[in-house]
């Protein structure tokens, strides 16, 4: 071989285009009666971004777990750089140059960025070396981060940067990204894809991008593999496909429902339906009474940081207002405020014209504000209580006889709601912990809606759900609005906001940047407001 460093050769000896970095053949993996991967062939080439598209449960993650040595396949072979290998542990995968950035972060909140980056390394702790490495990598790839910042103080997008830096520091030749944009906004996603492009073109690495968002696959990848129900249903050069074709292969039928279009991140479809929606009447909505009225709300965090800064927003009866914004710009604080978890330092919140005492436990709930929190485990439910108890929580009046709580009434309430909201649970007395994510979400939704709220706040309500559950959730939000509830949808997914909202508000650094009617909204203005430029 003429080149001294084969790892950076762009072509193989015959000069037939990019070298194959990963070649998986006939991979089979079964879990009891479910086949997660059935005779899967998968290839990744150096210098290219390979997309891996599929719905939740299509087998993408299983395939990647096989590649990273987390699970052992029942059958099949793997070649890395032309060498037949057996990968039986993540350590072996690491030694082969395979690294994965997971969807759920594995950073430690209490530690700083550089400490997290050195985690798991067995050599002597070298602070200045680690800090230097972090600075170097962040400069080279445009991953702006302060090595001395504590992870707990970072936004989701910044945490992901730390994960990527941690991964790049080990200098892997094959990088796998699992749904990397699920917590990122448009701008952050674009930054990430720029980095990825740099990694493959300038450094000849191979990248796998796992996603269920069509736009992402179309914009960021060179080739795409589509999986459905554990088999590869299509492979194509990305430039030769379009969104509709990808979606069809992915779900196995033509995408028609708007809810699904949203779930797939099919911006164009969402926009089309948005404009052609016949029921939309902006003037009529604005004439309705204001139900939720947030006035000059200011919340001050540790060290005097204003988490919400003079934030004002009105939601009318029967209206859906979407609050768009880059993650970590005060949405979480607004959510906590409306769950009575934080007090205001200035301003007030009114429901139906009545001022609500902020920060007093349950006050927002009693005033008629229902919240489906972004992290249902943190504040939406009690995992170690039963499903029936979670369907009540502190709404004890309706399940009490005198001063005593009645088990029978709790059960009756649960049976009614389980049926009404199609919650899949073996029994009302099953611990909440045993339910799947989608069904836990339904329990939260059922409880909040069964209190007949005046206001419904949904924060990232479809995050982490599969297409069917997304459709269910969006239908529920729309039904709530039709029933006269004022709905505030907090989301970082613009597609979701565009598809559901009557008006769109944008938040940046805790401040309201502006509010636009849906039919006046265009991506450029929204993008500018999300970037901090007031309307």
């Amino acid at each position: 071989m003429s080149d001294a460093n084969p790892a950076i050769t762009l072509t193989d000896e015959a000069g037939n285009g990019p070298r194959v970095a990963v070649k998986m053949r006939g991979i089979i993996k079964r879990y009891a009666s479910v086949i997660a991967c059935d005779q899967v062939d998968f290839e990744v080439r150096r210098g290219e971004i390979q997309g891996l598209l599929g719905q939740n449960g299509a087998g993408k993650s299983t395939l990647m777990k096989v590649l990273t040595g987390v699970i052992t396949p029942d059958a099949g072979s793997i070649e890395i750089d032309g060498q037949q290998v057996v990968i039986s542990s993540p350590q072996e995968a690491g030694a082969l140059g395979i690294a994965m950035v997971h969807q759920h972060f594995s950073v430690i909140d209490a530690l700083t960025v550089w400490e997290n980056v050195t985690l798991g390394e067995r050599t002597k702790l070298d602070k200045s070396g680690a800090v230097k490495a972090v600075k170097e990598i962040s400069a080279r790839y445009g991953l702006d981060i302060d090595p001395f910042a504590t992870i707990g103080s970072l936004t989701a997008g910044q945490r992901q940067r730390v994960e990527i830096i941690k991964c790049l520091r080990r200098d892997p030749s094959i990088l796998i990204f699992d749904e990397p944009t699920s917590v990122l906004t448009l701008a952050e996603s674009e930054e990430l894809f720029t980095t990825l492009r740099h990694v493959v073109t300038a450094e000849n690495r191979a990248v796998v991008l796992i996603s269920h968002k069509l736009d992402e696959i179309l914009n960021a990848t060179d080739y795409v593999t589509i999986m459905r129900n554990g088999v590869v249903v299509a492979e194509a050069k990305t430039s030769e496909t379009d969104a509709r074709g990808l979606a069809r292969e992915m779900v196995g039928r033509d995408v028609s429902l708007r809810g699904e279009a949203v779930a797939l991140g099919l911006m164009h479809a969402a926009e089309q339906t948005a404009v052609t929606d016949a029921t939309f009447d902006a003037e009529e909505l604005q004439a309705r009474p204001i139900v939720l009225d947030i006035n000059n709300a200011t919340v001050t965090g540790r060290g005097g940081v204003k988490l919400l800064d003079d934030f004002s927003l009105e939601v009318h009866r029967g209206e859906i207002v979407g609050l768009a914004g880059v993650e970590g710009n005060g949405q979480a604080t607004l959510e906590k405020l409306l769950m009575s978890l934080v007090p205001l330092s200035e301003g007030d919140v009114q429901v139906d014209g009545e001022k609500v005492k902020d920060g007093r436990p349950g006050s927002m709930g009693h005033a008629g504000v229902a919240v489906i929190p972004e992290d249902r485990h943190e504040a939406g439910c009690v995992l170690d209580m039963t499903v029936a108890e979670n369907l009540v929580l502190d709404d004890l009046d309706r399940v009490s006889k005198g001063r005593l709580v009645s088990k029978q009434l709790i059960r009756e309430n649960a049976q009614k709601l389980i049926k009404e909201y199609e919650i899949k649970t073996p029994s009302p007395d099953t611990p909440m912990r045993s339910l799947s994510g989608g069904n836990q979400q339904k329990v939260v939704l059922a409880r909040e809606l069964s209190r007949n709220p005046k206001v419904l706040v949904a924060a990232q309500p479809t995050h982490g759900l599969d297409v069917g559950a997304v459709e269910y959730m969006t239908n529920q939000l729309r039904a709530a609005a039709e029933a006269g509830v004022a709905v505030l949808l907090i989301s970082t997914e613009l597609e979701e906001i565009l598809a559901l909202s009557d008006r769109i508000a944008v938040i940046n650094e805790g401040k309201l940047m502006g509010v636009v009617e849906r039919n006046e909204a265009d991506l450029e203005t929204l993008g500018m407001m999300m970037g901090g430029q007031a309307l």
Partner: protein
Amino acid sequence: MTVDEPTTSEDLLPVVMGPKTGDTRAKGILINVALYAICMLGAVALASLLVILTTDASPFDVIHALYLGSLSEPAAIGRTVEQATPILIVATGLVVTSRAGVFSIGPEGQFLIGVVFTGMVIFKLGLPPVPAIVLGLIAGAVGGGLWAGIAAVLRYWRGVDVIISTLLLNFVAIEVLSFFLNKTWLLQEKVNKQVLPPQSPSLNESFRLPRITIGGFTTTSGIILALVLVALMAFLGMRTRWGFRSRMLGLNPNSAQAAGVSKVLVGGGSLVISGLFAGLAGGVWFTGVNPRVVLGSGGTMPGEGLLTALISRRNPIVIVPVALFFGALRAGGLRLAATGVPSNIVQIVQALVVLAALLPPAILHVAERRKAVKIAQRAAAAEIASQEKVEVAA
């Protein structure tokens, strides 16, 4: 899941839970018993080894002494019950705090303050016996509650960690007791103007809690009070809104606050309640078990109440047998010490037995968590499978 999903929750039942039969429950109990047996045998083996290495006594002598002191005859059983009484009262209060997610290690201090308050009321107010005892016990409870209240106020006003504040308040309480026992105008005994070492006078027979005597069996009537309190707290915890709320707060404080549970009222309240019980336990111990207060009074007894609550894992009924077990260890330990085994060895033997009792619940807890995760994973797999079915059908 799509909307026209044909599967019902019944279809999922066998997938998620597996067939539910009496077999599995019997198996669970068997595993429990086996675990305890193994751990206990291990503890006894270690304890025996220790005793052989340090003394002339044989392991059999140790077990025999423990048995003689705690269970051999009605009088021994009476002593066991008597020793268990304050432990039971302390544990009853702590079940309330741990249910609300507050972890206090302050029973020792609250117990001692309870002793001081009870002692001051009985010795200094000059009341007739019955009002003196009743008022003394109430004062003991109030003292313990106030002492715990300091930690509660610090926690919810300034955010001071409860574990640290209750621990430090224990040391303060020891010094408070020492102060009271070193001042003759407070609790120190004085005979014929001669000042004795720091200890209180012995409580006159008529000012003690009445005894329950049936044949050779004799014990303090404090146990009746303790059992009534156990039943009362169990009922309140299981059936009232307050019980439901505190459970919610303990399991997920954020969800609880969003739902309307006040951390200050329910969480701080639970801390004060545990203080009331620990203080009362001090009063009962003084008037019913040990009529003279010296420095170091009570010893590890409040700590054993803490362990009782821990072992019982928030179950308000299980604390009764567990407290009796600790009572038996104490009663047996007294006997063991009388046979010449050094008292620190006696304590180590007790500690080993306690560890053996703590291990099985810990092991089972981990196993349960793993099982719950598995069930969730299987449910997710079932969901994927049913989705496939729908798509095949479509």
